[in-house]
């Protein structure tokens, strides 16, 4: 398959993915908008005003980056895991598998679809946050880069989950029991400087901590973690997860008998 044809195949998968989540926007875009609105109202306005400052910032300003990134993570992941698993379940993944589209393009298309939904929901949540706080973005470049890289990482993770999943239960286990706890403990609502030394060190094993802090650095200019280290961790995870995904696709795990 020539490069130009590969581009058409990639664009086809990406467009298909964007249309999929756009078609069911009530299930894909509205829920995170409502959830984060509630977070802003409860933790930002109602409780936040009693907490006072966190790491030198008003509490609502402090939690905004984490809440935006949480929406990005959840949506990038769930877009790929549900879409690719559905394609397996309904067997229409075979449309791609019998075609000359290379495995790398299939993976890139799905990841790009996950990133598109992550970014789209991220923008919606950012707009909502502007109703609650006067958000000033410190560094647009870093903020956008963190969003895209984090979405890429979790889209790849969602792909792996979908490949291994054998039932619809299997696609909700990781988000419920791994992703949500790690995100909540990744410093959305607090700075790890508040924690006892042991838990500060333990928190460093949580990769989501690096992403949230990198994004907070982009938005507020403050971070518990060195920004260079944060980017390195994100990139290492992306490389590992993409390599894993490619291996699964090439071996045909869960896809070819």
């Amino acid at each position: 398959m020539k490069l130009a044809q590969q581009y058409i195949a990639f664009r086809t998968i990406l467009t298909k993915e964007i249309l999929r989540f756009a078609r069911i926007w009530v299930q894909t875009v509205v829920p995170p908008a409502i959830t984060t609105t509630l977070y802003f109202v409860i933790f930002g306005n109602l409780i936040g005003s009693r907490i006072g400052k966190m790491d030198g910032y008003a509490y609502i300003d402090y939690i905004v980056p984490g809440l935006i990134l949480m929406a990005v993570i959840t949506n990038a992941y769930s877009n790929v895991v549900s879409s690719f698993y559905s394609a397996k379940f309904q067997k229409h993944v075979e449309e791609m598998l019998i075609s000359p589209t290379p495995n790398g393009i299939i993976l890139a298309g799905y990841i790009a679809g996950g990133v598109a939904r992550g970014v789209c929901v991220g923008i919606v949540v950012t707009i909502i946050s502007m109703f609650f706080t006067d958000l000033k973005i410190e560094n647009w470049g870093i903020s956008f880069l963190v969003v895209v890289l984090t979405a890429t990482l979790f889209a790849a993770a969602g792909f792996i989950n979908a490949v291994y999943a054998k039932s619809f239960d299997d696609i909700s286990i990781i988000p419920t029991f791994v992703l949500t706890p790690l995100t909540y403990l990744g410093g959305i609502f607090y700075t790890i400087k508040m924690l006892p030394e042991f838990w500060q060190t333990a928190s460093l094993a949580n990769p989501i901590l690096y992403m949230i802090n990198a994004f907070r650095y982009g938005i507020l200019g403050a971070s518990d973690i060195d920004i260079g280290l944060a980017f390195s961790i994100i990139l290492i995870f992306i490389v590992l997860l993409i390599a894993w995904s490619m291996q699964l696709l090439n071996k045909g795990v869960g896809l070819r008998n």
Partner: protein
Amino acid sequence: MTFALDIKQLSKTYRNGFQALRGIDLQVKQGDFFALLGPNGAGKSTTIGIVSSLVRKTAGSVKIFNTDLDADPSNAKEFLGLVPQEFNFNVFEPVIEIVLNQAGFYGISRSQANARTEHLLKQLGLWDKRKEMARNLSGGMKRRLMIARAMVHEPKLLILDEPTAGVDVEIRHSMWKYLRQLNQQGTTIILTTHYLDEAESLCKNIAIIDEGRIIENTSMKALLNQLNCETFVLDIKALNSSLPQLENFELQLIDDTTIEVGIAKQQSINELFVQLSHHGIDVISMRNKVNRLEELFMGLVERNETESLTHTQG
């Protein structure tokens, strides 16, 4: 000679130890309309799965138009279109998107894909349904959608796995007409079906697979010539007397107006009619008791099973 499909020593053993294919060789000539028949679990779908890259083979080689599926999968896949047995499209997508997306997976530009999709959907009677979600289509429409999808990249080899299963007679015949047209235009077609009249009517050559082995591979004409005796059903005007004894023909009375007769290959049907007339029996109509291919197919499969059993016991 160019073979549309050239399979050599193809084997497949599934993880549970089931040996679905035991080193089959199969060649399908370019331009052929080829029937691949066999009982359930014989290995047809596994063969098609391997050719279409959905099943990994254990051993052997597959070439599509001289292009090795292992060495050059991208080019080999370009030649192939597949209409699978089960519906395998996204039921939540509109009809037109399903076909357009498939064109995209083959790297076909949007303008070309639009033109081909419109042509195919019109030809297959689905153009009015193009904006309909696929789940709202009837069974026959879904089958036709899968044919349109398989043809959008204009494959040189089209494999249809039970394409007319569950469709009504009218649609079945319109699909036959379409497939004949495709074949006449140069597309090589491989068909698996449980409707043996379909295979007999459409296909020029045939392979019968059973227990993972090809047990017959010949032309349809040669296979049908193997049939030594055919059983015919004769509808007659009511008999006034008892059933007569005929010379060289054995009649069997089914009811007052129906008799059955076995006619050997070398016997003349005219002779039968002469004798019946002589006894004052008027024949209104005549038909095969079972499809000729069905009679042969059953015989071959039963023979293969008996041989396998003998080998096992031996």
